Structure formats: C-alpha cells, structure tokens
C-alpha cells in the first residue's frame, strides 16, 4: 500500500507497523512479548498521564487481552480470548439512523480517514469490582456524532453490537437478549472523555476486546463500553440497555462508577486492580470526577444508578 506522507496519521502508522510485523513471524512474536513494542507510547507521556493518577500503572497486553467480559464469546473471562479466533472484523460498516438529518451507513475506513486517532490511557472499572489501566487508541465519539448530524430533538444515543452467532459462539445461547445494546445521554456521548477505540497498546483492537471499534466511557462500569459496534441510533427517549433489561434492580442506565451505591452482588467501595494483591478504594466516577461530575449535578445518583 502506498501512502502519501500527507496522509500519515498515528492510526495509519499503527496499521503499517502491524503489516510490517505480520511480515515476519519472529518479529510478531517479539512485538507481543518485548517491551519495545510499546515504545511508541513512551513518547506520548503528556497524553499518557493526563487522565491517570500517580499510582496507576499500565496493565500488560496479556492481562488486557486474556481476562475480560464479552459474553458474545462466552460468559467466562477467559472465553473472549479463547473463542474469538473466527471473528472477522473487516470489512466493517456502521449504520447511523434514528433522529439524524440523513440515515446512512458509513464504511469504517471512511470514518477513520475523517478523524484523528489519539492515545488515551484510562482506568477501566468493571461492575464485578476488578479494574485495569488500559492504553487505548481511538477518537472522540463527538467527532462521529458531528459526522452523523443528529437533529436537535436527539437526546440519547443507542449503540448496537454485531450479531453473528456463527462467529461469536456465545450468541448461540440466550444468556443475554442479543444483540447487545447500550446507550448514553447526548451530553455524556459528547463529553471529551468518551471515545470510540480502535486499538490498544498500538495494536489494532483485538477481537476479544471489541474489534474493530468499541466505545470507552471511563467513568462508567465496563459493561457500558459496548464492543464491536454496528449501529448507532439517535433517540429522543432513553434507550433500553442490555443489562438493565436483564436485571434492572442490579444495573441502571447510568451505571456510573460510584463507591457509595452498592450492588447486591459486589460491594462497590473497593476494587481489585488486576496485578495487585490488596484491594484499592474505588473512586467516585472512577476518578474522573473533575471531568464529568457536572453532568449529574441535578441527578440523584442513588436513584439513577
């Protein structure tokens, strides 16, 4: 593939590097194992540290890609890693519909050529009381929303995961009502912290983490950050979301990380950072209070959990 220097964006650098790595098995192995593969992030310490606390350490690529929830590939946290080998994330399109000027289907490549991919290192807090620090690559959701041109009547955004039971064995069982759906209020979606991630650790998004494109909303429990998105709908009413539909007494629409609102299964006061022995205190809004607390100043968070 020939690329003009004017076209080079960080994202394309990643893609190129990946192609280059694929050329040789040895270097591919090296890339996943050796810290040198992550070297490009060290240059980015500014972005890198912007959203982290002093005692936040990156989780390893292995931790991030072998332990997570993605029920489309099975209910155990090792299943996404084990069962996602047959998933084909390319070619990929995203359908935009609902309250927009013009419903349309975007080619992923087209979206990517219109946005700036940047590094975002975020804490991820699962509702099951474990957490990680993950170096994502992606772009602000607000950029895509601008491209989609929603009407002023649009107050909510709904996201839908792809439904491909033949490639996603977990979908062959009705553990959740497929396809997985999630949603945000418009102001949450437009918040600069909210991104659509297309990679992690400088690799294209691994299948098990939501290839080729997923949401990351770092101040909410992990299940809000819907993976492998194929449809984005703009609505004037609060959309149904998968976990809330399944167990409304356990999971709310907002699902903001909140150590003061307990979950019947897990205390949300503390969490285990993967790789650490002792539990940590969970932070309000997962530590992003400064950036997002203003969104909820008129909301009773014990009721709208």
């Amino acid at each position, binding site marked *: 593939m020939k690329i003009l220097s004017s076209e080079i964006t960080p994202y394309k650098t990643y893609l190129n590097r990946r192609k280059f790595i694929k050329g040789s098995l040895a270097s591919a192995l090296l890339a996943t194992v050796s810290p040198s593969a992550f070297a490009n992030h060290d240059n980015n310490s500014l972005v890198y540290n912007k959203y982290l606390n002093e005692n936040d350490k990156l989780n390893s690529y*292995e*931790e991030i890609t*072998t*332990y997570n929830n993605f*029920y489309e590939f099975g*209910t155990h*946290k*090792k299943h996404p890693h084990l069962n996602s080998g047959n998933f084909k994330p390319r070619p990929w399109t995203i359908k935009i519909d609902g309250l927009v000027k013009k419903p349309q289907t975007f080619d992923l490549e087209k979206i990517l050529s219109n946005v700036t991919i940047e590094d975002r290192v975020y804490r991820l807090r699962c509702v*099951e009381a*474990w957490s990680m620090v993950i170096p994502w690559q992606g772009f602000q959701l607000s950029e895509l929303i601008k491209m989609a041109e929603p009407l002023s009547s649009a107050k909510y955004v709904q996201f839908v995961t792809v439904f491909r039971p033949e490639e996603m064995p977990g979908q062959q*069982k009705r*553990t*959740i009502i497929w396809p997985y759906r999630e949603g945000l209020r418009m102001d949450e979606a437009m918040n600069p912290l909210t991104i659509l991630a297309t990679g992690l650790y400088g690799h294209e998004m691994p299948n098990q983490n939501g290839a080729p494109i997923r949401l990351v909303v770092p101040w909410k429990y992990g299940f809000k950050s819907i993976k492998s998105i194929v449809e984005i709908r703009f609505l004037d009413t609060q959309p149904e979301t998968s976990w809330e539909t*399944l167990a409304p007494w356990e999971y709310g629409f907002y699902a903001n990380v909140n150590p003061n609102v*307990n979950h*019947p*299964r*897990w*205390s949300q*006061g*503390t969490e*285990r950072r*993967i*790789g650490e*022995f*002792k*539990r940590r205190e969970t932070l309000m809004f997962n530590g992003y209070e400064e950036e997002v607390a203003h969104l909820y100043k008129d909301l009773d968070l014990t009721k709208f959990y």
Partner: protein
Amino acid sequence: MFSTRNFNRSKPVLFILILFPSLLWAYQFVTGNLGVNPIEKLMDELGLMALRLIIITLMITTLSNIKALKSIVVFRRMIGLFAFYYVCLHFSTYIVLDHFLDMQFIIQDIIKRPFITFGFISFLFLIPLAITSTNNIIKRLGFKLWKKIHYLIYPVAILASMHFYVLVRADKTEPVIYMGIIILLLLHRIFKRLTRPQLAQ
C-alpha cells in the same frame, strides 16, 4: 468387587485424589500460575470443589440404596469432611486474601449481599456436621440424635447451590444443574420416607 473391604482399601487413593487439587492450586497460586486474577480464581475453584463434594455426599446416600452399591457409604464421611476442608479454604481465601481481614467490611458484606449470606450460613451449618463426625461422638450422641444433626446437610446443600446461583450474572446453567440434582436427591428421600415410613424410625 464392590465390597466394603475393597472400598476401605481404596480410601487412601481417594484421599489423595481429592486432596490433590487443593495442593495444586496452592502451588499455582504461590508460583503465580493461577491466571490474571489469582485470588478470584482460587476462591472460585475451592468453592466449586466444595459444592461438588457436598452433592457427592448426598448422592452416596441415595446410591447406597442400590444393593450392589451398598458399600460406597464407607466413603461418605471422608468426602463430607473434605467438603468441609474445601469450604474452610474457600472461606479463608475470602477473609484473608480477598479482604485482608478487614472484619468491618466482611461483616457488612455478609449481611448486605444475599449470596454471601447464603454461603456463610451454609458454612456455619457445616461446622456441627464436621465436629460430630468421629465414631466416638456418634456413640456418645447416639445414632438417632447424630442422624438428626446430620439432616443439616440438606440446608447446607441448598444454601450452597443458591450461593452459586446468585453469584452467576447470566447463563445459570451450571448452578441450575446442581440445584436440580439436589432437588432430585431430596425428592427421592421424601418419597422413600412416605412409602416406607418405618425406615425413618
């Protein structure tokens, strides 16, 4: 082949077989080979093992009604005690490794979270069963009273399976299978009592 003598002879082998997983997990834990979230993994494995052993003790009683398998009852005490052993390890993992002896938090957790409440009560009910398992104590209590105490195994099994059922977020197939087995075994016992009441005496 299925004689009491042969079964008694195979006890040491069974002992090692049931003990082995705990040693393996302890070794894997210490050497850092229990995966990305080792404390959770250890707790899950120990708990699941305990639940399975509890169900096996119930099964042994039922299966020993079959003439040819009558003698398997000689394994029951050992397996029951192993169930208690795994429950203790499961519970101490929760107390020590998961919550670092933060008793205030743990008490809150036990009270507030139904699944932990179920598990904890199940554990409490197992204690008298374990204590009254030596021949000496059975003699001292008399078989009738001993038997009455050991009816506690039913609430233990039900609570333990509920503990697991509530913990699972979606796809409750595995806990439902365990619950189903427990209910079948219970029904069988009730049926037996109703049709042959003299057995209950």
